[in-house]
């Protein structure tokens, strides 16, 4: 039983190690406002065939197929002859302004640096994104979360089965649980 638990703990930990490191590092960056996330911006103008102003979604699909823009389609607005939309993924966002009178679109691409992308990965939840690749992050988040629970449960059982640190571990666990659970209950009951 102990051997099985140990292997399960090791497997869950190793599989999610990289993800958990990224989540932890980005949590640290956000908690302390550390510098690091940055982005660069480029703007291009492209010619657009006429007729797309009546169907912004079709226009977005055309951009993705013809110009390789990848991501979820969000923030679609139409102001007269101008259609504005954003196609975004963890590493970059494309802000598009399409003027149907001129049959041209201005595409402003914001590309995030490594730390910026790590930050977006931390916020990339859900497994029903339009852009299928973003769902990978959602699945990794789910697997890492389940791994955390498995790590916690197996860790506690393994600790208890070791006689060496039972008293000290019980004290430490009691303090931590008392601190955390009490505050959670107080917050939730409010």
């Amino acid at each position, binding site marked *: 039983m102990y051997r099985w638990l140990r292997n399960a703990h090791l497997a869950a930990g190793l599989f999610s190690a990289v993800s958990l*490191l990224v989540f932890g590092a980005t949590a*640290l960056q956000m908690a302390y406002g550390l510098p690091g996330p940055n982005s660069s911006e480029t703007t291009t103008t492209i010619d657009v065939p006429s007729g797309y102003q009546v169907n912004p979604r079709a226009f977005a699909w055309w951009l993705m197929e013809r110009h390789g823009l990848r991501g979820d389609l969000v923030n679609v607005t139409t102001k007269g002859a101008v259609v504005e939309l954003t196609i975004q993924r963890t590493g*970059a966002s494309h802000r598009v302004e399409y003027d149907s009178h001129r049959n041209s679109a201005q595409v402003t691409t914001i590309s995030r640096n490594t730390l910026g992308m790590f930050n977006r990965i931390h916020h990339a939840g859900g*497994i029903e994104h339009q852009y299928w*690749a973003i769902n990978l992050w959602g699945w990794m988040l789910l697997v890492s979360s389940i791994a955390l629970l498995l790590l916690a449960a197996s860790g506690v059982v393994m600790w208890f089965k070791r006689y060496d640190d039972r008293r000290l571990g019980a004290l430490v666990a009691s303090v*931590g*649980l008392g601190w955390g659970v009490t505050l959670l209950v107080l*917050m939730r009951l409010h």
Partner: protein
Amino acid sequence: MKRLHILVGLFNLTALCVFAVAGITETFPRGERQAHTRTVDYEAPRGLDDRQVAEDFVSRHQVPLIGPLRGDAVHRNDEHMVTFEFFSANGPGKVTILEPQRKARIDLSRLSFGRFMTEAHAATLRGSAPVITMRLWALYVDCSIFSLLFMALSGPWLWLTSRPELWWARITLAAGAGLFGLAWMLTR
């Protein structure tokens, strides 16, 4: 190192579970909120301006604010009563100070338990409101961030120094890192 890994894990058990629940909640987001209204006893101290009254209320009732009250959150409603909006770990809400009755009404758009855990996991000491409950919780979360990083590093280290020959462990690490790398390539 092993002892430290175990003790750190035991201390941060609650936070790790909160992080895990937040991750699961965000994978299957639901927008459910419950409207919740209650009235509590409150008498505004004399001599305070509107903002100070709001802060006094928050402090006395330990409203679990996610962040300090915004500058424009406090105002007077049509009945000239002090009103302020807030965002707590349980969701957004509004407080109306009913001065004649010496009471206050709290209207809350209460989040589900999963969303509450998501809000709680994001509490930081640097950004927390001056509410002792939240400050203590945020301190615990801050400690847990360091703990998570420590365990994510010490865990593989312990494996490498004790059982590096395990082929399936190497494959597991490579699989997790590989999947991360694949997702990175596809979404950068």
